[in-house]
């Protein structure tokens, strides 16, 4: 809890968080308005995909400093020589990052409220879309945290995490070029393949399992980066 409070404060007292939220809301508002006036349909599928793509770029910026900065400034030594476990450090940082992602989603929910006030949307896909975005944000945060753990340079951490996220997002495309069984393997690694059902209102346990697995692997790798050599 102590570590979590410290991480929350570190994230929400940094101007990075507010810049990110502001840019995110601006772009999302633009997308929502455009979609509303061009399509005139009461749904958020396009908004969800727009948010997902923004997450690919934004979440690595939130996670980049989490471990890299502690390593660079030497404070990681203070943390690791305190009587706390690596898992507590990693979970606190992950949870703090997820809080910011959740806050952005809560603000995006304004779009859903607008739809609810002026139309009669199908609520199922809207709920599942937000769940999908939270899972996607969590997966990207876990990946970003692990990458942040292997470098002491924030920019390097952000760029590599972005690259990894974007590659995982669209990795299914290469499936068309690959023979069996590799095409299925590659397709089932794809973030977009597992996110699409959520955004369109089809909840599958396997998609949920996929995102939880990515989060788990990311957190385990983050802990590995803290392992004492």
């Amino acid at each position, binding site marked *: 809890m102590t*570590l979590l409070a410290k991480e929350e404060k570190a994230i929400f007292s940094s101007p990075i968080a507010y810049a990110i939220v502001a840019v995110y809301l601006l772009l999302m508002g633009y997308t929502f308005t455009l979609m509303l006036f061009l399509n005139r349909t009461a749904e958020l599928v396009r908004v969800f995909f727009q948010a997902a793509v923004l997450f690919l770029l934004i979440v690595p910026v939130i996670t980049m400093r989490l471990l890299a900065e502690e390593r660079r*400034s030497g404070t990681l*030594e203070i943390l*690791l020589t*305190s*009587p706390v476990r690596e898992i507590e450090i990693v979970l606190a940082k992950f949870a703090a990052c997820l809080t910011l992602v959740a806050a952005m989603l809560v603000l995006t929910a304004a779009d859903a409220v607008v739809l609810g006030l002026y139309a009669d949307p199908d609520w199922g896909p809207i709920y599942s879309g937000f769940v999908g975005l939270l899972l996607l944000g969590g997966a990207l945060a876990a990946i970003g945290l692990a990458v942040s753990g292997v470098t002491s340079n924030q920019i390097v951490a952000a760029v590599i995490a972005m690259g990894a996220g974007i590659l995982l997002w669209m990795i299914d495309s290469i499936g068309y070029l690959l023979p069996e069984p590799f095409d299925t393997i590659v397709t089932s690694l794809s973030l977009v393949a597992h996110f699409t059902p959520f955004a369109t209102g089809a909840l599958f346990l396997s998609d949920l399992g996929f995102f939880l697995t990515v989060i788990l692997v990311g957190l385990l790798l983050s802990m590995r980066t803290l392992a004492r*050599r």
Partner: protein
Amino acid sequence: MSAVIVAEQLTKWYGPRLAVDHVSFTVGAGEIMGLLGPNGSGKTTILRIFTGYLRPSSGAARIADLDVVDDALAARRRVGYVPEDAPLYPGMGVAEFLRFMGRLKGLAGAGLTAAVDAGLERLRLGSMRATQIGRLSRGYRQRVAIAQALLGDPPLLILDEPTNGLDPRQIIEMRELIRALGGERTIVVTSHILGEIERVADRVAILLAGRMLGTHAVGATHGGRRLRVRLRGEEAPVRACLAEVPGVAAVHLEGRPAASAPVYLLDVADASVAEAVAKAVIAAGFGLSSLELAPVDLEALFLELTREPAEPGR
């Protein structure tokens, strides 16, 4: 005296580089142990193994009978650690940082408040309570780091180069502080500055290239002594004359041999040899200008132990 710290054949490889080479030592309760060595000699690596930041490649490190690898959390609870250059969170206030560290060490409620207040007072940080750490000077940051290490009253303090980057007045204060803390607990302190460690530690271990060359009790008398003799005369006959005196084990020339009245260092068994040396020198007709007893001090020991072996052919 029970040992608070035990290192047994401690060895650490960084890839192919051997950083610590089978180092063994113990530090007793209440003792201030200094680790002295040039930069890169393995001091910080040894400290980091004891604080749990690094794992030893082989050998064992124990704090109060707790293995630092097998009982890592319990061992870490018994250590207050100030890393080199005192890394702290620049965005936190002084008291806020101390409360944070106190909670990590398991303090809570009134106990936490009392410990933080005691730390602020002991390190005279009361007026800086709300100041952001990033705005503090080097000396104050070092004090905050020490206040943090004292939280929870650990029986062992580990200080890595605590006087690094301080001004002369701060160095003197830091020395006094370390001596004062030493009465209550065991302290391991490192430095690459000889005079520094000599003033602080009860006992000094000298490290070079990862190996421990020996330990030396500061201020204690030793079996071996040295005579410093300044006299005029041809080098060869002087050497022959001095070597013949009973009780003189070896004769060295100090400084430049070309000096008009060079200083010879004699390894002698005990102080009474001085008289015999004076008689022999005067009888031989060499111009004696000074003769004094020089105990083997830390500096001499350090230079002797860290002397590179002479290369053949030179």
